[in-house]
């Protein structure tokens, strides 16, 4: 199972979903703080869910408040940068560009939700692997 996790992780790096910042996070983890990455990731997912929900509500209202949307995206980009979620970060940048030029249809095409989901799935898999290891 560990090998499976390692393969998935490598694939995420290869495809550009994760960048070196994620490695920086892993290096901050040690025996005294073995769950640091998991803790940060959990906070990131909660925060992302909040931001995505806010963004969707703002979009649903129909009148696109670009300042507000840009603000949410700035926050989302910030936390994605800190955790090394590279593709999400890129999409936030694209999104903000659409906001800047007032392009409403643009951001309806960005699959940022899918990116975060992918990262979340990876974390869940890693946790399962850790639990399997503990039981062994």
């Amino acid at each position, binding site marked *: 199972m560990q090998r499976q996790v390692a393969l998935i992780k490598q694939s995420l790096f290869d495809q550009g979903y994760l960048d070196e910042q994620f490695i*920086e*996070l892993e290096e*901050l983890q040690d025996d005294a*703080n073995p769950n640091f990455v998991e803790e*940060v990731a959990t*906070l990131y997912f909660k925060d992302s869910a909040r931001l995505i929900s806010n963004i969707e509500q703002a979009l649903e209202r129909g009148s696109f408040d670009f300042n507000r949307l840009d603000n949410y995206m*700035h926050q989302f980009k*910030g*936390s994605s940068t*800190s955790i090394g979620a590279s593709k999400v970060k890129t999409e936030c940048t694209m999104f903000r560009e659409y906001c800047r030029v007032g392009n409403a249809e643009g951001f309806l095409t960005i699959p940022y939700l899918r990116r975060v989901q992918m990262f979340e799935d990876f974390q869940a898999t890693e946790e399962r692997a850790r639990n399997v290891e503990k039981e062994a």
Partner: protein
Amino acid sequence: MAEVMRSETLNISNNTSSLASPELLHVLAVDDSIVDRKFIERLLRVSSCKVTVVDSATRALQYLGLDGDNNSVGFEDLKINLIMTDYSMPGMTGYELLKKIKESSAFREIPVVIMSSENILPRIDRCLEEGAEDFLLKPVKLADVKRLRDSLLKAEERVFKNIMHKRELEANDIFSQLKRAKI
């Protein structure tokens, strides 16, 4: 003369170093992002710093006792060696916090470092002009934090050495006086 010396209590001035404890720098970190707060706290802990993290500039001012509700009474024991703040925060920005700290007589000597995800030169200039110690681009690296810590510790060491030197001079002075008095 030896007996006279032993029974005296040497009253030397008691300046203490401003370090929170012998080795630890106490850092106040300010960031509205929960992910970044977790991250900077870990970076600072790994760098052997004592950390207090708050989620807004307003809370930072409250912590320092600069929010107008409290006077400095009771905050004299608060020893902060470094403030690290995010630039873009809702309500009061890191820049505005920097200005408030530099306006305060109690805290203006404390180095303030600004962190930002955006590399905007006029912004950086403005912060440095206002007295920021440094401007770090996010994501902050462990190397950045260690560099800050090392330069602050060197500064503290200089202060400490000055204090020790002063104590030595005072001790010598008292010793000479006692020598003279003895006869």
